[in-house]
């Protein structure tokens, strides 16, 4: 037990705990980078707006109306953000269930990204709640609204965050230097992964199912009973496109942390992911065509919304799908990244079409987010990136694990 005391009092380099924490807080790298210069004022402004929101009410900062009660904060932050976080369950599925070892080096960064996305985008939900102090009600069990899709989604957010934290926890243990804890925590990974994939299947589709009861309010080109299936399938390539996008940026910004071996492997990873994107996008496109034909939707095409629908399906599903396929065949990494970018724009458009643009499309007064809603959204995004950077600069996320991990 002597051993344990040393573990508790010291970190991996044998530093006392206080010194270790002080080191951890200290900023690393240049302070006046373009990103910092842009993000800090926006974040400060965003915080101010959030204060106003809690003093004067949601109406003081948003353009929400009695007819359109969910706007940008739900449609973009939560619904779109969670779709992009889908990479975590897809990659863990590939690595831990299908044993595709090739993708192991991106598991940690993807899970971290997913975890932070859930924490912040689901956290942004608290800003949108009128009575956030009651948010624990469906959790602690004094009033379970089990017939609600939102009840399912809320629970799944919570449970999935825990599952992802467990998946990521070995990296934290490695950082602090807790060898025994790391062993226990990594033993829990598979269970967390299986649980996490199950949860993801249900709440990715559940986010779509939220809108099933809004049958008369969503434009018929975007409403169908298949919204949950469409949301689930699109979360696969949405998540993977995010992985490709984030990976390309991380390899530039945090390049010094990545070992040569992983650097060289990265193009192969992107290449492999483009194949999965092609396949899932084809399934998605096929499902879209199916719902289009089943819903006899051609009568709606001859309208501005119809044109917009075609732009989404052809320009942001079919085009990137073909691009993924072409660049996969030709091993063109640049085109894959381009396809991933177009796909991401397409997913944003699709989620906003269901939740904001197509919602009450026929209303006399259209909802358009206020500048304050946009600033708060950017604030959430920037805070997330700041935390992500903080963690990547300290924990073994992109860089290799400490040497003691492999010589047990």
């Amino acid at each position, binding site marked *: 037990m002597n051993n344990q005391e040393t573990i508790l009092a010291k970190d991996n380099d044998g530093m006392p705990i206080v010194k270790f924490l002080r080191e951890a807080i200290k900023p690393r790298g240049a302070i006046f980078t373009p990103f910092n210069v842009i993000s800090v004022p926006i974040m400060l402004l965003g915080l101010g707006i959030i204060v106003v929101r*809690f003093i*004067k*009410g*949601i*109406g*003081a900062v*948003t353009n*929400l109306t*009695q*007819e359109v*009660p*969910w706007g940008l904060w739900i449609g973009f932050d939560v619904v779109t953000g969670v779709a992009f976080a889908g990479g975590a369950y897809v990659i863990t599925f590939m690595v*831990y*269930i*299908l*044993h595709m*070892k090739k993708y192991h080096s991106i598991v940690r960064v993807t899970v971290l990204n997913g975890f932070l996305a859930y924490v912040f985008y689901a956290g942004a939900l608290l800003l*949108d*709640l*009128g*009575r*956030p102090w*009651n948010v624990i*009600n*469906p959790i602690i069990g*004094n*009033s*379970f*609204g*089990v*017939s*609600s*899709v*939102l*009840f*399912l989604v*809320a629970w799944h957010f919570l449970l999935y965050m825990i599952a992802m934290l467990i998946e990521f926890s070995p990296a934290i243990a490695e950082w602090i230097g807790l060898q025994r804890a790391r062993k226990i925590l990594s*033993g*829990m990974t*598979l*269970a967390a992964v*299986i*649980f996490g*994939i*199950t949860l993801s*299947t*249900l709440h990715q*589709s*559940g986010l779509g*199912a*939220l*809108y*099933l*009861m*809004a*049958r*008369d*309010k969503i434009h018929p080109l975007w409403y169908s*009973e298949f919204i*949950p299936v469409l949301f689930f399938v699109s979360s696969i390539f949405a998540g993977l496109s995010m992985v490709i996008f984030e990976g390309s940026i991380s390899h530039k910004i945090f390049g010094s942390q990545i070992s040569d071996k992983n650097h060289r492997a990265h193009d192969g990873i992107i290449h492999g992911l483009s194949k999965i994107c092609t396949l899932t996008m084809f399934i998605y496109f096929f499902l879209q065509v199916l719902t289009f034909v089943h819903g006899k939707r051609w009568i709606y095409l001859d309208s501005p919304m119809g044109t917009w629908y075609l732009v989404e399906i052809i320009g942001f599903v079919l085009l990137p799908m073909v691009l993924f396929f072409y660049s996969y065949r030709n091993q063109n990494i640049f085109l894959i990244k381009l396809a991933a970018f177009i796909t991401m724009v397409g997913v944003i458009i699709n989620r906003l079409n269901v939740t904001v643009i197509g919602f009450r499309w026929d209303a006399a007064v259209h909802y358009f987010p206020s500048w304050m809603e946009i600033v708060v959204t950017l604030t959430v995004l920037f805070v997330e990136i700041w935390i992500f950077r903080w963690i990547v600069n300290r924990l073994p996320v992109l860089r290799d694990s400490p040497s003691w991990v492999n010589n047990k």
Partner: protein
Amino acid sequence: MNINRRNFLAVLGVTGVSLATGTKLQASRENENDTEFYGVLYDSTRCVGCQGCETACAEEHGLPEPDPDDMPEVGKVRKANENRRTVVNVYDTSQGEVYVKNQCMHCNQPACTSACLTRAMQKTMEGPVTWTGDKCMGCRYCMVSCPFDVPKFEYHSANPKIVKCNMCYERVVEGKLPACVENCPAEALTFGTRRELVAEAHRRISENPDVYFGEIYGETEAGGTGFLYLSPVPFKELGFNTSVQKSSYPELTKGFLYSVPTIFVLWPAALLGIQKALKNNTTQEEDHE
């Protein structure tokens, strides 16, 4: 093998828990026909647009006094909002000017209550759909779900409430009439059990087929509603949402919710199976590496 078993047990536990919680998926309130919900019949042929219901409602629920200049006008759609739970509008129809009162429909199987994840919105045994502030987290999913756009939200408050007609639940349980019904001088509003009201409405239609349009709005709309409407003209002319489906709105999410326990059982088992099956194939490769 040790680790495998441990993981297997972990998954088994997870499955068990989800099974236990998953099956709690509540079936909707017992057989609809056994429950005697109260409701209100509104006869627009009798309504004179005096707005007595609006005043009585505001008084009963401590809402701001209605502006006397804000009267029903043809071509102007007044809407209920966070300061008024009911409004009367007037429409120019094929049968002349017709008044329509608007408030919560008190559906038999309301979308809002099935949407509510804290049970703040509830269909009471007596029939009124009520809202409880202690439970509500202000997510506004009830507003998204309601096909009639009834629940309103106090956007300009730090402690916002959901505002909607509750059919004067506190009066109904005391055996009194809802404030609007009691204060209607034209007897356009009738309170009673829903069954009686449907019968009464059919009686009025069959006795005066020339006066009434031959349908009751709310008899089947959204699976049946507590407020029932009689009109001299097709309801479309009175600004009603006539594309409302005949079955209840919670029905729309039922399929999804019923698939949840199934997925919770099948997924972990299948995933673990795949994981184990593929592991044997890959271990050999690893050894070679």
